[in-house]
């Protein structure tokens, strides 16, 4: 990808899901600074589902902890429900619970990107670039539907690695 390429955030719509108004405002301000104009907000899962069903949303940015609900429930609905508007919708999950078990749980639930809080603006920006400019293949398996969890495709010239 060319070093001089740019992202026109005005062409993308976002949904921010968080119970904390300050966190929503901060994310909203960051996205506006980047040039985004269509930004929807939800403070709970039900409202987020409602917006997903009625608005054209390109990227979901959700907190993992949503009071008595969880961003994982929202992710599950997007990835596995028959009413999902787009099962391949990019979902960026933010959380202060950044312990490895939480990261693995989110990854295995089909999250597109995971951002540990507190985050730097650079780390958030790189995740946004990743979901927009470097979309990943999806895997549809018996117990998993989500982005391909293998991040790097390494060329291999030897015999079949999984030969029986």
């Amino acid at each position, binding site marked *: 990808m060319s070093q001089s390429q*740019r*992202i026109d955030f005005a062409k993308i719509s976002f949904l921010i899901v968080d119970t904390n108004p300050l966190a929503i405002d901060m994310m909203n301000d960051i996205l506006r600074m980047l040039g985004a104009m269509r930004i929807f907000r939800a403070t709970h899962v039900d409202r987020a589902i409602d917006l997903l069903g009625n608005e054209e949303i390109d990227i979901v940015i959700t907190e993992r902890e949503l009071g008595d609900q969880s961003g994982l429930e929202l992710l599950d609905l997007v990835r596995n429900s028959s009413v999902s508007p787009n099962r391949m919708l990019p979902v960026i999950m933010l959380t202060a619970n950044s312990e490895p078990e939480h990261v693995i749980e989110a990854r295995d639930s089909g999250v597109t990107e995971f951002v540990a809080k507190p985050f730097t603006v650079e780390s958030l920006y790189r995740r946004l670039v990743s979901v927009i*400019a470097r979309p990943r293949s999806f895997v549809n398996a018996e117990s998993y539907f989500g982005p391909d969890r293998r991040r790097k495709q390494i060329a291999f010239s030897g015999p079949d690695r999984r030969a029986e």
Partner: protein
Amino acid sequence: MARKAQIIPPQTDLKRRAVNSKVGFAINPTPEDLKKIEAVVHKSTDKFITQAADKLKRLREGYRAATPNKSLRPAFLKQVREESLSIKGLGGMFNFPLMTAIAKSLNDFTQGRSDVDDKQMSLVSLHIDALYVVLAQRIEGEGSMQESQVLDAFQEAVAKIG
């Protein structure tokens, strides 16, 4: 027999719509670009301070109510767990990493607990007081050696009393 995994090619709609060579933010942002975004975050620092002070005030009220009344402690612990996680996540973003560290210690302490004894209640209260001090004195950045020692003391106390 198990179903074979199906690989679905990436959706490139967003890329086609938004990636270009003329308009928008650079894919590889310059340090100046990043500073612009950081400035947006820092603009909200006063809001964070107000919100954190309010959360700590409510935690102190919860502590005062739950100290003599043990039946209130499970709900108080839930409140502590939720608010400490929120402060842990946001503190560092507004240049209060020490608040993040203290809130993490408090949040770790509450994980998996549904009740606490009197000594453990005191430990929760000490954490809340320490968060208040950091906020009231606007101790930004990592703090001094003294703050680092306070954090170490918390870890020791959690290990001993927890």
